[in-house]
């Protein structure tokens, strides 16, 4: 064993150790994003939602206004040859879900928001869970998280009018030609008078894996069985869609067909802005039946994060960067609202 060091050698060695520890600490701070270039983080996206729409403790930070529902999924068995996920072979799978309108304000008028959503959790008898969040548009205006953030900023409401600045939106669309399909949808979109008659789309692509391990890329949608009727031009009830849903479910269950669209060999499977040709093969995987709606801010869906990457064996994520960003941002929203709830907020 050597003797302890003294004098300059000791000082030098202590300094080197100190520097090494400081470097390790600094690299941790860099990994956390506390130092270094400013990055687009889930926190920044949620901060921006709250800066635009207001701070509503305890509520989801996007698609804040919604209702919990429940029902079941009757599988047709037709998708079982494409995916080994139990939901596609089990005859009846319990489902809980949530109908919502887009935006971070839980007090928006239902008829004022174009985007509607349906989030679902399928609980199959093998103990696996499948969560999916679907929206009325079939595509996004952007292909990645940076583009999405730009779109959010361009949609900042003007304090004077309460609406986004049309010039800023136009400039955004001009910078993002990949938004063509979304703009076309927005031009043609005729909002229906009910969640029940709305179609909902996965937007992002996923991978189905069959029992032999063969992969097929798909998008899915829910096609309503209820007949379309246009949303009236003048709607005075701020909770129009919620009241409509409650009235319809009081009379009987509502149904949608879960339709899988199979990607062709050259279809973009990692770009949510680009639609696939309408001629693609479709598989009707079964029927979603919703037969119960809970009171506002009640029900099983409330305390769930409908992270679209919660997938059962037999369904996998695609490389679509928006899918990863959604997962990260949903987690941040869930963390914040659970913290707010723990601190006493009542949504």
């Amino acid at each position, binding site marked *: 064993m050597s003797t*302890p060091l003294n004098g300059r050698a000791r000082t030098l060695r202590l300094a080197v150790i100190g520097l090494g520890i400081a470097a390790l600490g600094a*690299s*941790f701070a860099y990994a956390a994003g506390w130092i270094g270039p400013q990055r687009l983080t*889930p926190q920044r996206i949620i901060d921006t939602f709250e800066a635009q729409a207001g701070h509503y403790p305890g509520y989801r930070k996007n698609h804040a206004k919604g209702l919990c529902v429940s029902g079941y999924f009757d599988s047709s068995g037709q998708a079982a040859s494409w995916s080994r996920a139990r939901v596609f072979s089990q005859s009846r799978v319990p489902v809980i879900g949530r109908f919502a309108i887009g935006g971070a304000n839980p007090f928006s008028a239902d008829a004022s928001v174009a985007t509607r959503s349906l989030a679902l959790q399928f609980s199959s008898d093998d103990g696996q869970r499948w969560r999916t969040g679907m929206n009325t548009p079939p595509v996004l205006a952007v292909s990645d998280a940076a583009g999405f953030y730009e779109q959010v900023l361009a949609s900042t409401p003007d304090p004077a009018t309460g609406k986004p600045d049309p010039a800023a939106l136009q400039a955004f669309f001009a910078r993002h030609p990949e938004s063509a399909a979304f703009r076309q949808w927005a031009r043609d979109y005729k909002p229906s008078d009910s969640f029940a008659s709305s179609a909902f789309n996965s937007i992002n692509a996923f991978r189905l894996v069959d029992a032999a391990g063969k992969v097929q890329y798909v998008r899915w949608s829910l096609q309503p069985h209820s007949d379309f009727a246009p949303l009236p031009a003048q709607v005075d009830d701020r909770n129009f869609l919620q009241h409509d849903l409650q009235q319809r479910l009081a009379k009987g269950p509502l149904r949608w067909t879960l339709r899988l669209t199979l990607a062709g060999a050259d279809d973009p499977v990692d770009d949510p802005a680009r639609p696939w040709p309408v001629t693609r093969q479709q598989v009707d995987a079964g029927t979603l039946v919703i037969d119960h709606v809970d009171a506002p801010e009640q029900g099983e869906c409330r*305390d769930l*994060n409908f992270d679209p990457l919660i997938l059962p064996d037999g369904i996998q994520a695609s490389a679509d*960067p928006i899918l*990863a960003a959604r997962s990260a941002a949903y*987690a941040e929203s869930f963390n914040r609202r659970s913290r707010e709830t723990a601190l006493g907020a009542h949504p």
Partner: protein
Amino acid sequence: MNLHPSTRFHPLARLLHWLMAVLILTMLFVGVSMVADLSPRHPWLVSLHKAIGLALLVLVVLRIATRLRYATPPLPSDLPRLQQWAAKASHLLLYGLMLGMPLIGWGMQSAGGYPLPWQLPAIAPHDLRLYALLRALHGWLAYLLFATVLVHIAAALVHGFVRRDGVLRSMWPGR
């Protein structure tokens, strides 16, 4: 140099120490970067975090058993009382955090209503308030663990290269 066995940790203890050292540092960096990341790396980092977390839980149980089974080399007798106490306290804290962090992570995922990987059972009820508490604990204790690891590394290096008292050697790999 052929040291007396009692001046070194048992080879199994040393193996577990270095294996867990690498995994814990990886875990801390993965954890702190994944929560601020929304790139396609995000889901991959989350899966990695859960896999390493479970591995660390198994390893720490083994490690505690090893620690209880085999005698540990004594600290140098000329070490000041306060430093002896600090060494013991910081090791107790490290063991507590090594055991607590994966359990809190597991409990937090359970309380958040998240499906658990490898069909593990939930170890806490689905409860948003409990989730919030465990999520906050998981984050703050991670910072405490990282700070304790920094102090631990600094102390080990001072023992090895300044005091040169055999403490670093007692945990060093090899014969």
